[in-house]
């Protein structure tokens, strides 16, 4: 079953590590460890040499670690950015609309030039991000912002495409395992996405890249739960309100003039939401019933759709050989106990294998194997560090610690970051997984440190209904 990668092929891959993402899934997990070590070290060296002089923050990190060149794979463990890097701007940059300074800050995290971006008259985060979209190759992604502050990840257009090619590969079957044997993927089948069509959070960015890359930019075979936009400004406002509530200072949250100007549009969109829902379920029933489709969603909204669809009497909607991709866990939301059964009844499809990934990487997504493990894709170099001291753990055998990732497929920003996840990682050297995949894998439960150490403030990446409602409520009162 294992496919050998020819040395010549390995050499090509390390010339452009992003091509690793595009390998067929079976090939990805069949690379002998010794070859993978060579590919990854060369990829890491190449990325470092290319980016260290173009990304100021990486240069400072390397300087602090006295690292002028990469000699060993272990050196990468010294270059893992904490998540705080991507929100190290002052919140007032947004509150006071200093978007030129925000651009300067973002520019220190990417090799793409942000200095030339025209921020004149920019009065909202959505507007600011939009200017990068139209004037540069940046396709900035932002977080859900539940901690009161959005993170901004300066993803490039090329990385966004790399990312969705990675998703397409992740949905392939490995070896002789069951799955879509005819190679059908995005573009071949209609896409149904359980989330927003527009916006700069990971989900709509990913939908946009899929449409651009696989559907030639055409929308007619794509159906999204909400055809509108999830606004970065609304996510930011909701997060700030949440933070202000905790500090007893809700009355001090100020709405920027730019946001006030769009207030009516937001409230109108909210009023239209039920009509959009109606249209979505009508389209599922009228256009896509019985068809072979690709379904893409994050767990809570996917379950939400199933529950609502069943209440509308919709069952067994799609052809059995449809492809179904669900990312993420419950994200702190309460789901019905029988949510898997409800999703299966609604879609008519078996509940899919869970995926694990992180939006800081260019392409990290991996589906749970039949032995219950998440295998690390070859463009990622996994590290484990001690959660308290930050000291790297040995890269062999089986270790438990905080997961760090270095994605050598990242081309214009540094691919090294620390996740907030505690994992038990098996490096696959002594006890390879019984499923036949080679390389490192996550064995057992993944836990967020924020949950282990008291409460998690993260909410869904696909809409944040509760918080969005609160932001709208605040906004409607602000105008009255």
């Amino acid at each position, binding site marked *: 079953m294992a496919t050998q990668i020819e040395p010549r092929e390995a050499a090509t891959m390390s010339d452009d590590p992003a091509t690793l993402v595009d390998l067929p899934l079976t090939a990805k997990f069949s690379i002998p460890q010794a070859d993978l070590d060579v590919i990854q070290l060369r990829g890491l060296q190449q990325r470092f040499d290319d980016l260290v002089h173009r990304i100021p*923050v990486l240069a*400072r*990190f390397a300087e*602090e670690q006295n690292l002028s060149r990469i000699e060993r794979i272990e050196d990468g463990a010294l270059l893992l*950015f*904490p*998540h*705080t*890097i991507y*929100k*190290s*701007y*002052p*919140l*007032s940059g947004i509150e006071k609309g200093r978007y030129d*300074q925000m651009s*300067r*800050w973002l520019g*220190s*995290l990417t090799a793409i030039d942000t200095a030339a971006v025209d921020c004149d008259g920019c009065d909202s985060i959505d507007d600011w991000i939009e200017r990068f979209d139209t004037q540069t190759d940046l396709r900035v992604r932002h977080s859900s912002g539940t901690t*009161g*502050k959005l993170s901004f990840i300066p993803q490039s257009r090329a990385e966004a495409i790399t990312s969705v090619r990675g998703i397409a590969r992740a949905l392939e079957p490995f070896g002789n395992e069951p799955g879509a044997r005819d190679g059908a993927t995005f573009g071949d089948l209609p896409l149904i996405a359980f989330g927003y069509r527009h916006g700069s959070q990971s989900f709509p960015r990913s939908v946009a890249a899929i449409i651009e890359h696989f559907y030639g930019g055409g929308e007619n075979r794509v159906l999204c739960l909400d055809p509108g936009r999830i606004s970065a400004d609304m996510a930011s406002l909701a997060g700030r309100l949440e933070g202000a509530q*905790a*500090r*007893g*200072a809700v009355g*001090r949250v100020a709405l920027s003039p730019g946001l006030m100007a769009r207030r009516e549009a937001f409230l109108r969109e909210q009023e239209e939401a039920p009509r959009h829902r109606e249209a979505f379920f009508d389209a599922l029933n009228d256009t896509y019933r019985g068809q072979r489709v690709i379904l893409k969603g994050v767990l809570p909204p996917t379950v939400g759709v199933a529950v609502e669809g069943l209440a509308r009497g919709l069952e067994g909607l799609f052809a059995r050989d449809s492809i179904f991709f669900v990312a993420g866990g419950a994200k702190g939301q309460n789901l019905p106990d029988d949510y898997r059964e409800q999703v299966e009844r609604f879609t008519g499809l078996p509940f899919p294998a869970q995926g694990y990934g992180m939006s800081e990487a260019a392409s990290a997504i991996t589906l749970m194997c039949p032995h219950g493990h998440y295998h690390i894709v070859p463009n990622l170099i996994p590290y484990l560090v001690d*959660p*308290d001291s*930050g000291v790297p753990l040995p890269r062999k055998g089986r270790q438990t610690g905080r997961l760090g990732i270095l994605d050598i497929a990242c081309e214009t920003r540094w691919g090294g970051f*620390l996740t907030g996840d505690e994992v038990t990682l098996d490096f696959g050297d002594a006890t390879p997984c019984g499923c036949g995949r080679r390389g490192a894998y996550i064995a057992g439960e993944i836990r967020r440190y924020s949950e282990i*150490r*008291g*409460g998690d403030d993260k909410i869904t990446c696909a809409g944040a209904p509760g918080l969005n409602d609160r932001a709208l409520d605040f906004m409607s009162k602000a105008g009255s």
Partner: protein
Amino acid sequence: MTTHVPLIIRGRIIAGADLTFGARREGTEFSTPDVRRHITALPLSDAGELADIHALSTEQVIAFLAAVGRELVLDRNPFLQEAYDLSIRSSGLSEGIVRQLYGSLDTLFAADFIRELAENAIGIRYLDGWVPRRMANGSTCNIRAFGARAVHVLAGNVPMPSALGVIRNAITRSDAIFKTPSNDPMTAVAIARTMIALDPDHPVTRHLSVGYWKGGDSAVEDELYRPDRIDKIIAWGGQASIAHIAKYIQPGIDLITMDPKLSSSIVGREAFADEATMRDVAGRLALDIATFNQQACANSRVTYLECGIDRAGLARANRFGEMVFEAIQALPAGTSGPAPIDRALAEELQALRMASFDHAVTGGGPAGAVIVSQIDEPVDFAPMLNNRVANLVPVDDLDIAVRSVTSYTQTIGIWPEHLKTRLRDRLVFNGAQRVVSLGYACKAAMAGPHDGMEPLRRMCRWITDEVHDDAPTANCRQRNELAETAG
């Protein structure tokens, strides 16, 4: 390593290690009996049993507490030593400070201090008997402060809340069930065991129970937080802690919250007159920042500097920041000492150092750090500052400092003195609860009000016994007369 923490119910020590809990820091855990299995014994089943402690005079209570205090000597009290050992591992404080804190617990139990507390906060005659007061309607109102059945949900950053809880409970003649925190499950137990060793049948001993259960455990809290079993909940802690409790609040249960508070400082322009004055003020500020390693609510986290935000102003602020950092390093070990910074805060610091244009960071690691904002705003993670990491914020106008105060602000240390007089009312209107001369933030007058209220008075039930000299129908006649006049 697992430490055993017994359950204490009214003078009885219950051993058994039914459950094991993590003590908030990795690798530290403790075992303890399952409170759910002893839940029926925990509340005071008959409220009439409060009689014994009400039969004591305040002087008798003080005498017993003082005797307890004489036994709370770290070098020879094995219970306290156990609490001290666990605290070193679980509190996040340096060993020098933990020793200082446990070494000075006995001073809280000194008779003079407790007498002052009882007299200032309540008035001893109201505790010891009925105090008559003549009322305008001709009656005599006899007023007495009675104790109540209370649950204390304790905070665990320092051992003081446990000790203060024991003292307040005894003075007010109350019955207390202490729910201990996971980062200090032992101090209150150690004090209770010291009391038991001294006199297991003393009413003060018999009205104290101490246990650990996970906050929000409904198997315990559904049984306990009921108006027929307790009268008051005194809760330290933040949103999460209060959220568990709030759902039990109903008529008959009074909630007294000791909210988490944050403190700050204000340094006026005079401080930057010359190098010597700067150094003196930096020394005072270092004390307010770093005493107890910045684990207490009174510790300064953000300091506003009236030095201006032009180039010269920033230079003054940065120079002052270096002085503050040096002064923190020079503090004696019993006051402040190197201790690892929490990972989350360390990552915020690292991000500022690597990627911010708006902040200058001096230090880092166990030495602590001083972040000097290069804009007139504090860092966004200001509430997380601790373990000797402070943020200095240069401003042109102290109005920014005044407007930053919220109801979550406790202490504001100010230099010079006349600036305090000028600003204090406005600071209070915005939410501040205590203003103090810079350098004295951690030297609180413990017998005074606490966080803008008088918790001891609220811990009591204030009862009146009214005596009237006139005929019971006197008021009725008046009403008739009124009716006739109106007719």
